[in-house]
């Protein structure tokens, strides 16, 4: 499937590398070209410098033909805005959004985005590790 990823940080570059290795058609966007250095050697997808909350960047990244969009920048609001653009302006079928704030993650989950909160996941893991239940 064709996947557009916004944010080439540690998580974004890892996700891009794995999806590419699995044979998916990946385009990754970041504001900073230096960020693309994080992509694994042999990465066969596309990378594009630009803002994921700019519709022109999204179109250039091929969001119109994309099956999935994943927002993985550090900014919750940027991730949420870009994801809604992908979903509501460009009708991307599957939209996954990282939202650090668990309350916003829950709210936008109800509004139709597939959100996940690293804060909540980390808290759960920390407690599991502490109590030895993991």
């Amino acid at each position: 499937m064709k996947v557009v990823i916004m944010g080439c940080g540690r998580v974004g570059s890892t996700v891009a590398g794995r999806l590419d290795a699995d044979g998916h058609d990946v385009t990754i966007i970041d504001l900073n070209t230096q960020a693309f250095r994080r992509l694994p050697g042999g990465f066969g997808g596309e990378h594009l410098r630009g803002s994921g909350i700019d519709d022109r960047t999204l179109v250039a990244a091929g969001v119109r033909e994309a099956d999935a969009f994943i927002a993985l920048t550090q900014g919750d609001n940027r991730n949420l805005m870009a994801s809604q653009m992908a979903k509501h302006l460009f009708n991307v079928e599957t939209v996954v959004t990282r939202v650090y704030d668990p309350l916003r993650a829950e709210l936008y989950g109800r509004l139709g985005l597939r959100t996940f909160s690293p804060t909540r996941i980390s808290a759960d893991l920390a407690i599991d590790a502490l109590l030895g239940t993991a």
Partner: protein
Amino acid sequence: MYIVIIGAGNVGYGLALELYSHADYEILLVENDRGRAEVLRDELGELCVYGDGTEVTFLESIGVSRADIVIAVTGDDSHNLIACQVAQHRFGVSRTIARVNNPRNERLFQTLGIESTVSAASAVLAQIEADLPAQSFIPLLRLRASGLEVVDLHVQPRSRAAGVALRDLDLPDDAVISLVVSGDSSRVPDGDTVLEAGDEIIAVIGQESEPAMRELVRSPDEPQREIDEVLQ
């Protein structure tokens, strides 16, 4: 009436001062830069508060659920969008107004149910377009609910509309000529009305029909230009 303003830059600050002078309004100005918030607190007292207007916990602490209007005017469109959406969907605030810094985001905000959007760039461009001499096409008003536009057209000499009866004019389906102004008199036109060069037309049109309408009244000498091109 309780009004929450998010973003205490020049726009938010000016708006807060303006609204504050109305005795009926209770205003709260939210700023997420601590230094800026402290400066404003010295000047405005409890009118200004430090916090993130997109954060659920913070919005709860300022009692946003009893707000009549939330107005988000930061310089960042993503903050303005999320602040309005959280106020609406989490706290049931019925009226939200967002500043749109990038005019190209207006459609997104409207699609997502933000009641009103305010775009300085669009307003400035519309004003400039209206003031430019010999403009044949001036957008006057956008009717949000229907997506229709009220426009002012000036029939240019030798344009396709000049000297032609309305019924013979190749109008787009969603265009209605509502008023024809000749000199200092105006009339509601019918199919027999013949448009003359120099006439002014007030029409209600679909946004898609803009280029076709511009083309009808344009002088063959006038270069074709569109406000969208200026914005790109």
